[in-house]
C-alpha cells in the first residue's frame, strides 16, 4: 500500500468562543478514501477549509506529499493539487455550468475566453464521468442537486491529487449518488487521496477504506480498516453514547382524517394531485430529485401560487394564500434549502428560532418578550444539542448541521401546530441529533398533529413513516402502507418507467 500522502499534525483552529479544532492529527493515504465522521460542529468542515486554504490554522502543520505546506489562499491550495467540495455550495448563480466548473482557470487566448473550447472540454469531461448537464445552463436555473453535481465536477475536473468531499450527498438523491459513488471509486483507483465527510454511515461503509472520528474539535479515533469497525463503535465514538434503534418508531393509533389536499396543481407538477393525512400520522414522501415533492408542499403551504385545488384542515377549507396564512391555520413548512430559504444569516440563533412563534406572546401585539424568547432559544439549543457559544451567535457562524437544527427548532417551537411539513429535515445532521429529531416527530404525531416528511434517504422514510407516498416526475406514482413499504417496492415506484425492477433491486443490494 502507498504511504500517507496527506498528514494533519496537531492542527488547531480557534474562533471567538469556539475551539473548532484542538490538536487534530491523522493521515490519509493515496489510493484510499478516508472518511471523516463526527457530530455537528465537531470541526470536520473547518479541517477541510484549512486544507483548502480558506482558513489558516492557529497551530499545527499540514503535510502534503511529504512537504509541509502553509496556504495563504485558496489559490495556493489549488496550486498544491488540492480540491475541496465545500459543504456550503460555492457557485456563481449567474454564470453557466462551464464557467462555474472552470472558474479561475478558463481556457484563454490572449486573455480572451475560448468559449467553444470551454464548452467542449466541460461537455466531454462531464460525459466521461457520467454527469448529464448542459454546459450552457446557468446555475440559477438548476435544481440544488444539479448545482451540487456542478460543484463536484468543478473539484474533480481540477485533476487534483487530493480531493475532499464535505457531505456531497446531502442534497443528492439516488441517481446522482450513484454517479458520485462510481466517480469516487474511479478516483480511488487512480491513486488519488480522497477525504469524504458524511453523516450517513451506510455511505461511509460503502466508500471508505479508513476513517477518523471527531468530537468537539478533537480526534477521538482513527480506524485504519473501515470494514472492521462495528457500527455501534462508530456511533458511540461519535455521539459519546449508545444508540440502538435510531428511528425509534412507535406504533400509535391514528385518528380521523385531518388534512385533505384535493386536486392541487401548480407550475412544476404534471397533474393535479390529491392526498390526505390522518391525525397522528407520519406520512413520508419519497422520490428522486425533481420528482416534485418540494413543489407540491410549497403549493400546499401557499409559498408558490397554485393554479387549482384546495386544502382542507379538519373539514374546513383553508387553502392558504401565502405562508403567513398557512402558519395561522396551523400548517408549517420547514424548507429544504436552508441557505436560501431557511436561515437569516446575519441574525442570531435566538432570532432564527423565535422569528415565527413569537407572535403568540407579544405585548400589545407589537413588543417582544425578550426573556421568554431567550428561555425558548436556550431550551432548544440544549435539546437539539446545537453547538454554539451562546444564543446570540450569528447563525452563519454555525456548522451546517447546527444551522439545520436551529431552523428545525423554529418550526418545532410553533405552538398552534396542526400540520408539520419537513422537507429533508435531517440533511447534514448527525446521527445523535437525527435520533432526537425522530423522537420529536413521533411526539408531535402523538399529540395529534399530521406530520409530512419529505426525504431522499430511503431508510429514513421507511424508518419513521406510517405510510409512504412516492412521487415520480411531478405525479404521485403510488402509496404504500408501512407494512408494504419495502425498499424495492418504494424504489420501483420512484424510478422512471423504463427502468426495470431489476435496477431497483441492484441499487438496493
Amino acid at each position: 500500500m502507498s504511504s500517507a500522502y496527506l498528514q494533519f499534525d496537531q492542527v488547531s483552529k480557534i474562533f471567538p468562543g469556539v475551539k473548532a479544532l484542538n490538536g487534530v492529527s491523522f493521515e490519509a493515504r493515496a489510493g484510499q478514501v478516508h472518511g471523516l465522521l463526527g457530530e455537528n460542529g465537531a470541526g470536520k468542515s473547518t479541517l477541510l477549509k484549512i486544507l483548502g486554504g480558506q482558513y489558516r490554522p492557529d497551530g499545527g502543520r499540514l503535510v502534503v506529499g511529504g512537504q509541509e505546506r502553509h496556504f495563504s489562499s485558496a489559490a495556493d491550495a489549488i496550486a498544491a493539487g488540492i480540491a475541496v467540495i465545500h459543504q456550503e455550495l460555492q457557485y456563481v448563480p449567474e454564470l453557466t455550468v462551464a464557467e462555474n466548473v472552470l472558474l479561475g482557470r478558463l481556457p484563454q487566448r490572449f486573455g480572451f475566453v475560448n468559449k467553444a473550447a470551454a464548452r467542449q472540454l466541460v461537455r466531454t469531461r462531464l460525459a466521461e464521468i457520467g454527469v448529464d448537464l448542459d454546459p450552457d445552463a446557468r446555475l440559477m436555473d438548476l435544481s440544488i442537486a444539479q448545482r451540487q453535481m456542478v460543484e463536484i465536477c468543478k473539484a474533480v475536473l481540477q485533476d487534483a491529487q487530493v480531493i475532499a468531499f464535505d457531505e456531497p450527498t446531502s442534497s443528492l438523491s439516488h441517481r446522482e449518488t450513484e454517479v458520485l459513488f462510481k466517480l469516487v471509486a474511479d478516483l480511488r483507483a487512480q491513486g488519488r487521496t480522497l477525504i469524504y465527510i458524511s453523516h450517513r454511515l451506510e455511505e461511509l461503509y460503502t466508500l471508505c477504506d479508513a476513517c477518523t472520528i471527531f468530537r468537539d474539535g478533537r480526534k477521538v479515533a482513527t480506524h485504519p480498516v473501515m470494514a472492521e469497525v462495528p457500527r455501534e463503535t462508530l456511533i458511540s465514538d461519535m455521539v459519546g453514547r449508545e444508540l440502538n434503534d435510531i428511528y425509534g418508531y412507535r406504533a400509535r393509533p391514528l385518528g380521523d382524517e385531518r388534512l385533505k389536499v384535493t386536486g392541487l396543481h401548480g407550475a412544476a407538477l404534471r397533474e393535479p394531485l390529491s392526498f390526505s393525512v390522518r391525525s397522528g400520522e407520519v406520512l413520508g414522501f419519497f422520490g428522486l430529485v425533481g420528482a416534485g415533492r418540494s413543489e407540491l408542499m410549497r403549493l400546499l403551504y401557499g409559498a408558490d401560487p397554485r393554479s387549482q385545488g384546495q386544502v382542507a384542515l379538519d373539514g374546513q377549507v383553508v387553502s392558504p394564500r401565502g405562508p403567513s396564512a398557512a402558519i395561522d391555520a396551523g400548517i408549517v413548512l420547514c424548507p429544504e434549502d436552508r441557505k436560501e430559504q431557511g436561515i437569516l444569516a446575519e441574525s442570531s440563533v435566538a432570532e432564527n428560532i423565535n422569528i415565527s412563534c413569537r407572535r403568540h406572546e407579544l405585548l400589545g401585539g407589537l413588543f417582544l418578550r425578550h426573556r421568554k424568547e431567550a428561555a425558548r432559544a436556550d431550551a432548544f439549543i440544549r435539546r437539539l444539542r446545537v453547538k454554539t457559544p451562546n444564543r446570540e451567535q450569528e447563525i452563519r457562524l454555525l456548522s451546517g448541521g447546527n444551522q439545520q437544527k436551529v431552523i428545525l427548532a423554529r418550526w418545532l417551537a410553533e405552538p398552534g401546530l396542526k400540520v408539520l411539513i419537513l422537507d429533508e429535515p435531517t440533511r447534514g445532521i448527525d446521527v445523535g441529533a437525527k435520533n432526537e429529531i425522530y423522537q420529536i416527530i413521533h411526539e408531535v404525531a402523538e399529540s395529534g398533529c399530521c406530520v409530512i416528511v419529505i426525504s431522499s434517504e430511503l431508510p429514513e422514510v421507511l424508518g419513521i413513516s406510517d405510510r409512504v407516498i412516492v412521487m415520480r416526475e411531478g405525479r404521485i406514482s403510488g402509496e404504500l402502507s408501512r407494512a408494504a413499504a419495502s425498499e424495492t417496492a418504494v424504489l420501483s415506484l420512484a424510478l422512471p418507467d423504463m427502468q426495470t425492477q431489476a435496477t431497483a433491486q441492484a441499487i438496493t443490494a
Partner: protein
Amino acid sequence: MNTLTTPSSSSTSPSTSTASDRPAMNSKHRAWLNEHSMTLGYALLFVVLAFSVENFFSAANIVGLMLSVAQIGMVACTMMLCLASRDFDLSVGSTIAFSGVLGAIILERTQSVGLAIGGGLLAGALIGAGNGVLIAYLRVNALIATLATMLMVRGLAFIVSKGQAVGIADESFISFGDTRLFGLPLPVLVAAACFVVFGVLLNHTVFGRNTLAIGGNPEAARLAGVKVEKLRVWIFLLQGVVTAMAGLILASRITSGQPNSAQGFELDVISACVLGGVSLLGGRARIFGVLIGVLIMGTVENVMNLLDVDAFYQYLMRGLILLAAVLLDQLKTRGAARR
C-alpha cells in the same frame, strides 16, 4: 397544546457547547468593542475637539450642532429601517422640499396650522406608500423607483410653488423652529424622540425584527410567515411621514417652503446610516450607530466652520475624515473578520 414548547428534561445531556472560557471572554470583549468602537471613537474625537477647538465645547455651539443635524437625524431613523430591509430611498430630499412647500401653501390659503401639518404629513405618507407599492408589489428596483419619485416629487414641489419659495407668516408655525424646552430647541427634541421611538421599534418589536429578517433573507422571511410586501410598504410609508415632518420643521426654521431645498439630502442621510454600521446589503442596523454616524457628519462640518477652513479644503477634509472614521472602524473589526 403540546410538549414541544417546554423541551423535555431528557435533553440535559452535558451540553454540546464546550467552548472553553477564555476564548468566550475574549469574544465578549471583542463583541463589546465591536458594538461600541464607533461610540468610543466619537467620544474621543469629541474630547479632543473640546480641548483643541476654541468655542467648540460651549452650550451654544453644541445646541447649534444638534440643530444642524436634526433633520438628517430624523430621516436617518427611518432610512435605517429602509436599508435594513435591503431597500433604498433616494426620494427623501424631494419629499422634504415638497412637504415644506405644501405646508406653506396650505398655511397661506387656510391660515390653519393643523391643516398645514396634516396636509404635509399626508403627502409624505402618500409618497412613501407609493414608493413602497412600486417596490414591494410591482417589484421595481428600489434605486430606479425612488429616483423616479425623487424627480416627480421635486417636479411637483416646483409646480405647486411655481418655482418660488412660499413665505410663512404664521407666528405659531414659525416659532416651532426656535422654541426651546429644557434649553433644547424643539427640532432637536423631535429628533431625539425619533431615535428613541425607532430604536425601540427596531429592537423591541416584531416590526423591527421582521424588517431585519426581510433584509437578511427575504425568501426565508417570507417562508417564516413574514408578510414581506406589506411590511415593505409600511417601512416606506413611515419613512415618508417622518421625512414630511422633517420638511415641515425645516420650513418652520427657514420660515418658508423652498421647492429647491434639501437637494443631495438623501446622500447625506444614507451616508450617515452607512457610517453608523447599517449594511447596504440589508439585515444589519443599530440605532446607536446611526446616531453616531449622524453626529460625526454634523461635527465635521461644525468644526470646519469653527476653524474657518477654506471652502475648497473643506471638501478634502470631509473626505479625509469620512475615510478616517471608517478605517478606524475597520481596523478593530479586522481581527474579528473571517480569517
